[in-house]
């Protein structure tokens, strides 16, 4: 072991970490703001029905039926059409937090290309990961 120098961490790793951290944190803050707005009214879900449904062990689709104005599960990015409600804002925050990894991977890919701090094989690896995460976020890959 050589104690004479401190190795510099990879810039592409730092970019992934920074992008992921700030987007996750930003999304979390938006989600918390939406949560506070819950108590000011203008909710998408009926809070009482939702809370009772959770505690009584109702299935997700039952809760949607009882607590949402749509009376059914809204699939896809439903919250984008309901950003005027506290639930819509909270879900937007959750969505942004979950996109953090996707943008982090693309940022890491771009940094690897610009900085050339890693061998080409790792650029290919991070490109594959970025494409996979993007496809998942867009709903092109069904996990279930």
């Amino acid at each position, binding site marked *: *072991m050589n*104690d004479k120098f*401190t*190795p510099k*961490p*990879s810039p592409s*790793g*730092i970019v*992934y*970490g920074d992008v*992921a*951290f700030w987007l*996750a*944190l930003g999304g*979390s803050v938006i989600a*918390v703001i939406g*949560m506070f707005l*819950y108590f000011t009214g203008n909710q998408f*879900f009926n*809070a009482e029905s*939702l*809370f*009772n449904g*959770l*505690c*009584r*062990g109702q*299935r*997700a*689709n039952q809760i*949607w039926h009882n607590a949402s104005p749509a009376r059914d*599960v809204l*699939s*896809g*990015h439903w919250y984008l059409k309901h950003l005027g409600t*506290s639930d819509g804002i909270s879900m937007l*925050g*959750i969505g942004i*937090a*979950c996109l*953090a*990894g996707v943008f*982090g*991977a693309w940022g890491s890919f771009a940094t690897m290309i610009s900085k050339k701090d*890693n*061998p080409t*094989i*790792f650029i290919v*690896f*991070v490109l*594959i*990961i970025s494409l*996979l*995460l993007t496809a*998942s976020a867009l*709903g092109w*890959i*069904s*996990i*279930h």
Partner: protein
Amino acid sequence: MTFLDRVLKVNTSSSPASSSKSSGDPGTIKQVIEIMLIVIIAASAGFGSILAAIGTEASALSPTLFFVGLILVCAAIGIFAVLAGVGGGVIFTPLFMGFTNIDSYIIRSTGLFVATVGALIAARPFLRKGIANIRLLYTAAVPYAVFAVIGSLLAGYMKTAMGPASEAYIQGALGMLVIGIGVLFVLKKNSEYPDVKQVDPFTASMNLPMPYFEDSLGKVVHYKLKRARVALVLFCGVGLMSGLFGLGAGWAMVPVFNLVMLAPLKVAATCSKVMISIGDTAAVWPYIQGGGMFPLFAVPCMIGMVIGTLIGTKIMLRVKAGFIRPLIVIVMFTSGIRLLMKALG
């Protein structure tokens, strides 16, 4: 300066001497143990509050009590998840599925979400310090993520073609495998900083090792890796199992990094955490798009997980890697027993 500030204050000095002295100080270890005990007590109180709330009539429930309880429990989960190098979901999901009657789809959805957020928050300091090896984790993330997707598609096919009985066989086999890995961890010596005498040509050609400065030792850790080919095959298996069961796989990633590739334990744990942030991102979106996420439940859990992850990350940067080894073993045994119980119905 408060007690918490003193405990969590990260040593930013690059001086090996000062780092070594502070992290090896018995007072610091005592303070870390104290704060862990406080968190455990707070989490127990929180979980008790949730159980008490759910045990009462719905009309008498206190949402405030429920929210506070969720935040405390998830803060504790966040701390242990970071220290053990696993996703919070693998702790959160069995706890809530076992002790509350909340719909499992909602629990799994929220569990994946809190694990993702926890891992995303944790990734930054590990990558900035260079402990998490970006080459190693991206190399491992490719087979892991690709086979996780294949596994999840396979799970859907098996459920349709063979029914729920097929899942019981696979869960039983997985449970025994995880317990076996836990036993291996207990029996295996010198896994904190494994000694690699000879590197195979394939691993050498990948040029994976990246040295890092270890605060707790006060010096730069240079390490070698081996058996990359075997590890890549194993990550295919780990990804396949993760996709099949919808669980995070930090408990399986750490042994592959540490026992197969012989990466230092802290490198294995931090790489695993960053990989969870990648893998769970792919897995959480179908749940969101399928309507399994409710902000009223997910947001308090997320707040607690973020707080816990930040505390856990600070602790992890200060303590020696051996501190987390018993936690990893506990998580493995717990996961294995839980899977066997599920397999036996």
